[in-house]
């Protein structure tokens, strides 16, 4: 692990909240921060990006005549050979249905599946593997909480607090539940740093609050929320907290006991695991009281014609044959990530995050959304941005076609956030530990070329 030395910075003047940030919005002072940090980190061994790249076969290809530069990791991550092998091995040697069979293959499949559950539990420091429910993805996990916990715990006048920067999957299910129960949704806006206003959130929490739904790391703003504090404030009024950890679990150490979160969700495909599986962490006492979400096989105890009794958690919430191979693949992904160490991954990505932000600032007329990095504001290794007078889709198309650079353009499943920012869409480059500084350099070079091309046409 590379040691970082913290450089004391001049404090940044905050933007005048009355003036909405416009083009361009990068501060010169920031460059000094990144330069010092990277000067320290650079010496020594090969970077994490370079050392792990060989593990990801998909990265070594050309698209449209250029080397692929994959910068869409917030949408989905790539999978290392170890995960691919685990999947193949499962289907080749011991594929069998779990929990019900007597025979050898089925016993092995069950063992590996349950071992994967234990791995997830250990990865996020849950106290027991029965607190991990395998779902199809984080979206399904949130729906599970909404329909199961929400319908039985919310009533007319109950308040659910969210931020306007939440992903649609963390908003839409609650809209449905609010309609059904008469609960009220309240939204926290952004502060002058373009981060959800934590003070406003604190102020909104009252005895009417039953649930707080927040992201850990924003997939658009790159900001990190102080979950421990939010949980403390929520618990003080008896409210629960659901943490959307899709952008945090793959990139940093997440400790559900340390956070004291009540519910936490994540998707496998964003953390180097296969698609088709995700998980819900729920505290034991909460899961025990929750009625089933989907009904069917596996989640029952006894079935009669007119009624059934249900299994204990987590089985109660896992109806039907699960994505067995995929869960095992997720276990392999966790092994791979743990082998590197999440702290090491986080430190490397912080360096990349700062480098990306600094380099993007050099693009004329660019507007990057979210907070400016500083010693007390850390950004994730992603930047959503717009370049004045150029549609982000045009940018993304040209970057792909002419340079093989893969970024995303759109609202990134955060329409309310984009509406607040006053734009229809943004472009987004998002990195993972197998990206390198050279990837960032290539991205910026290509972006400069792209911007020149479109500007020359005006």
């Amino acid at each position, binding site marked *: 692990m590379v040691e970082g030395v913290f450089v004391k910075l001049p404090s940044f003047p905050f933007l005048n909240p009355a003036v909405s940030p416009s083009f361009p919005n990068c501060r010169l002072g920031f460059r000094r921060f990144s330069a010092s940090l990277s000067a320290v980190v650079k010496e020594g061994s090969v970077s994490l990006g370079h050392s792990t790249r060989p593990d990801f076969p998909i990265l070594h290809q050309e698209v449209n005549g250029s080397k692929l530069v994959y910068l869409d990791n917030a949408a989905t991550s790539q999978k290392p050979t170890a995960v691919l092998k685990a999947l193949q091995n499962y289907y080749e040697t011991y594929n069998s249905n779990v929990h019900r069979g007597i025979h050898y293959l089925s016993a092995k499949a069950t063992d590996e599946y349950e071992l994967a559950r234990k791995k997830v539990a250990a990865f996020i420091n849950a106290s027991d593997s029965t607190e991990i429910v395998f779902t199809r993805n984080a979206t399904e996990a949130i729906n599970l909480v909404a329909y199961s916990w929400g319908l039985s715990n919310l009533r007319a006048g109950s308040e659910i607090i969210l931020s306007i920067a939440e992903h649609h999957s963390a908003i839409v299910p609650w809209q449905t539940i609010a309609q059904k129960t008469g609960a009220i949704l309240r939204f926290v806006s952004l502060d002058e740093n373009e981060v959800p206003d934590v003070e406003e959130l604190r102020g909104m929490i009252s005895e009417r609050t039953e649930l707080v739904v927040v992201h850990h790391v924003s997939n658009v703003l790159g900001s990190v929320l102080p979950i421990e504090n939010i949980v403390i404030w929520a618990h003080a009024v008896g409210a629960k907290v659901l943490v959307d950890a899709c952008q945090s679990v793959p990139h940093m150490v997440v400790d559900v006991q340390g956070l004291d979160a009540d519910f936490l969700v994540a998707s496998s495909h964003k953390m180097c695991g296969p698609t088709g599986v995700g998980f819900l962490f729920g505290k034991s006492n909460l899961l025990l009281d929750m009625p089933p979400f989907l009904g069917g096989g596996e989640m029952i105890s006894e079935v009669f014609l007119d009624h059934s009794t249900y299994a204990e958690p987590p089985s109660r919430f896992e109806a039907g044959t699960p994505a067995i191979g995929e869960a095992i693949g997720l276990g392999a992904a966790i092994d791979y990530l743990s082998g590197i160490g999440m702290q090491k991954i986080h430190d490397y990505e912080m360096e990349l995050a700062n480098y990306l932000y600094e380099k993007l600032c050099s693009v004329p007329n660019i507007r990057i959304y979210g907070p400016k990095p500083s010693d007390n504001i850390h950004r994730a290794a992603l930047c959503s941005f717009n370049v004045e007078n150029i*549609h982000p889709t*045009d940018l993304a*198309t040209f970057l792909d*076609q*002419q340079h093989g650079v893969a970024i995303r353009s759109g609202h990134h499943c955060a329409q309310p956030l984009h509406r607040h920012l006053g734009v*229809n*869409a943004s472009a987004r480059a998002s990195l993972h530990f197998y990206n390198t500084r050279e990837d960032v350099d290539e991205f910026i070079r290509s972006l400069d070329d792209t911007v020149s*091309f*479109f500007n020359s*046409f005006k």
Partner: protein
Amino acid sequence: MEQLPPKLQEIIKLFQSVEEPKAKYEQLMFYGKNLNPLDTQFKTRENKVEGCVSQVWVRAYLDQDKNVFYQADSDSVLTKGLAALLVNGLSGRPVQEVLRISPDFAVLLGLQQSLTPSRNNGFLNMLKLMQRKALELLIEAEKGDGSSGNGQIANDNSEKPVENSTLDSKVDEDSGVGFSSSKNGEDSSSGLGSRGTRIKKKLEKELSPIELEVEDVSYQHAGHAGVRGSDGETHFNVRIVSKEFEGKSLVKRHRLIYGLLDEELQTGLHALSIVAKTPSEVEAK
């Protein structure tokens, strides 16, 4: 290709002559730049092409000869270029001609390589919206005329453009609305286009059948390789009863038919499904 509006054919030829993707972009953006602006009052929900990548609006109106004209706009330069391409290619043409356009022509532009799949979908959705609007305008106009005889609409695919007012953004693999032109006195009840009619006439002339059915089933095959780059009349079912088949084996009968339709096969007819019988074989049943 010959079925496409003349301006569109020109545009296609132009794009085919430009090989380098970057230059195609420039051409596209040039079209977009010269597009007439669309008044804000027309940027309505009904005029919006669905899809989340960029905003596109299309407005359509008819002149007194019932030719359809279009205006469009987009906040994305490349999408505006695509919209301009369609506006230029389709404006001023009779509704029937616009409706006959199969989205397959997009491949001819060679832009598919240069454009992301979702943008391509936007292109297809734009075209579909333009076709739907043209049809709706025509129906409105003809209601106003009080005439229902002209313009018999034969829908040979499952899409119902009039009733379904919500436009979904997934790519509809069906080719454009099949339309029979009753003006030329062709067989409007069977819904055959020009190729179908040619096939029928040829077989009638050469084989003097006592029974002949020609059915255009191209829509069933829309989307696979054989159909791309054609005008949509690619697959037919033929049932023919003729004395000419007497004494000929099944293979010889099929060869005979293929021989008569050789020109069609060279120009885009992809497959025939043939039932060829003699009168005695039919009576025997």
